[in-house]
């Protein structure tokens, strides 16, 4: 049976997919990967679909497989090795039984993603395998865990690489105004958009606190705000006027005012900003947001198109004979 043995897992290492949609009315947020683009990149590299799951880790892991599998590494660039031999990030590699895959954070970005060619064959709960620790669904992975994998039917596929747009060093994050933006004076709102924030260490899968120098961003009659629906990306001000960006596992309703919402495409920038990374907001209109919107299926297709065969000199390839050298010209985007 194909399986993955977790030899060591850092804190908050979990299995994630695109989450559980459709349970907002019961108070359950969608959850799923913090950086959904990384998940789609891993799916593109492996020729998998939107339902693929990956291990999400901010802290690294060591693992081995029972049967050969392709492994894709995406998200925050981490230091990866197979049996002590350094391997590239944003790429697929062949992992043979008994070899140990090691992944360690490099300090750039936050969440790394590790996916396998055969996919995870673990029971879904309410349609998803994603751990939602805030809802007490699933749990963090730990040493000794064994997860079933499907058979990798495309073992002979040549290794692929991606050169993704960097989203691991913060910068401008696009936002739209919302129903509660009016609680802020024009002066406060302008100051908000001119402020340089730094991601604080107080950040997890629920929310990320942003730090800044200067006066707090106080809402007008904030105490009168009735608890209302929250969406991931919302920028909520605490009672002390401190901004929290609400992330994948946010609560579904809340009573603090929201100054606006980050567009979904830019939420990975916040998720992947490590502590101290500078972030600032750029307000765009809904029309502008719609113009840059891409459905996940289209993102996956587009990402498959930019996967390239890995170019390496033969003497770097220790297990040369395991690669198919003649008929392996598959780019992964044939339909």
């Amino acid at each position, binding site marked *: 049976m194909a399986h993955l043995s977790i030899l060591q897992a850092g804190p908050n290492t979990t299995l994630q997919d695109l989450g559980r949609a459709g*349970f907002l009315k019961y*108070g*359950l947020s969608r959850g799923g990967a913090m950086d959904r683009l990384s998940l789609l990149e891993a799916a593109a590299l492996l020729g998998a679909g939107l339902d693929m799951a990956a291990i999400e880790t901010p802290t690294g892991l060591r693992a081995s497989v029972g049967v050969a599998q392709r492994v894709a590494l995406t998200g925050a660039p981490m230091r990866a090795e197979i049996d002590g031999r350094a391997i590239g990030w944003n790429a697929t590699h062949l992992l043979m039984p008994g070899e140990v895959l090691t992944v360690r954070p490099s300090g750039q970005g936050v969440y790394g993603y590790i996916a396998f060619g055969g996919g995870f064959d673990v029971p879904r*709960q*309410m349609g998803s395998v994603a751990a939602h620790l805030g809802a007490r669904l699933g749990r963090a992975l730990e040493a000794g865990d064994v997860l079933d994998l499907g058979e990798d039917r495309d073992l002979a596929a040549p290794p692929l690489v991606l050169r993704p747009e960097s989203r691991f060093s913060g910068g401008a994050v696009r936002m739209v105004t919302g129903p509660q933006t009016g609680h802020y004076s024009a002066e406060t709102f302008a100051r908000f958009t001119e402020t340089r924030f730094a991601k604080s260490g107080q950040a997890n899968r629920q929310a990320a606190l942003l730090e800044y120098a200067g006066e707090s961003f106080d809402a007008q009659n904030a105490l009168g705000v009735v*608890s*209302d629906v929250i969406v991931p990306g919302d920028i909520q001000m605490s009672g002390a006027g401190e901004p929290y960006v609400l992330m994948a596992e946010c609560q579904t309703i809340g009573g603090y005012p929201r100054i606006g919402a980050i567009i979904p495409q830019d939420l990975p920038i916040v998720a992947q900003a490590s502590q101290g990374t500078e972030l600032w907001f750029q307000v765009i209109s809904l029309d502008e947001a719609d113009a840059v919107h891409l459905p996940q299926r289209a993102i996956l297709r587009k990402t498959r198109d930019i996967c390239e065969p890995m170019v390496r000199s033969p003497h770097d390839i220790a297990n040369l004979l395991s690669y198919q050298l003649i008929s392996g010209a598959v780019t992964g985007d044939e339909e």
Partner: protein
Amino acid sequence: MSKMPDIAPLGTEGYLVRFADKLDDAANRGVISFAAALEAADLPGVREVTTALASVFVRFDVEAVSRAGLVAALGELLDSRDWLHPAEAERPRLWRVPTLYGGAAGPQLKEAADLAGVSEEVAVRELSQTRVRVLALGFAPGQPYLGMLPAHWDIGRLTGLTPQVPAGALVVAVRQFVLFANPSPTGWRQVGLTKIPLFNVNAAEPFALQAGDELLFDPVSENDFALLETDNMGGAKLEEAG
């Protein structure tokens, strides 16, 4: 504040239909009726409908419907009925939830009763005989905000937090109950304890409650409460007719 109800974008993938800018029982009933009608209408592009205390959120697929089209459809449904004054009474589901009041199960019952200006005995009678409605589910999965209690139960929150109340704790403030799904810190006063499982991922229906359900927290003795341990619904029973 603009005229209510209004329709406003929330994020890039949803619209919020606001019925009031404060918690109001009639508005909340309107919210729940409108959400039910919206789900039944199955409008093109609508992917999900959810409610908060005074608003309905509609998540839509930007590819499947235009913004103008969706807003027009929402507006048409809004105008089709007077949501705040329903022509016929809805018939909500009624849950009867065995509840242990006071003592270790409700350590702040006396304090809460004092603030409401009644004796503990009267407090238990009022709290257990008021049919409260699920105003919204949130904070934790399956966890209800329940109201409205009689006006003299408009008591404030604690100035500090109780570090932890257990799952099933019934707490009170501002004419509402919250029934905790998980152990949690709270600024509300704990008056009782229940055993109703609010979220069970392995159950056929993972969530016991839905917005609009009515509940009665029937007082039970400590002995009877202990016996509920073996019941997988914690003794909670559903009566269909309202």
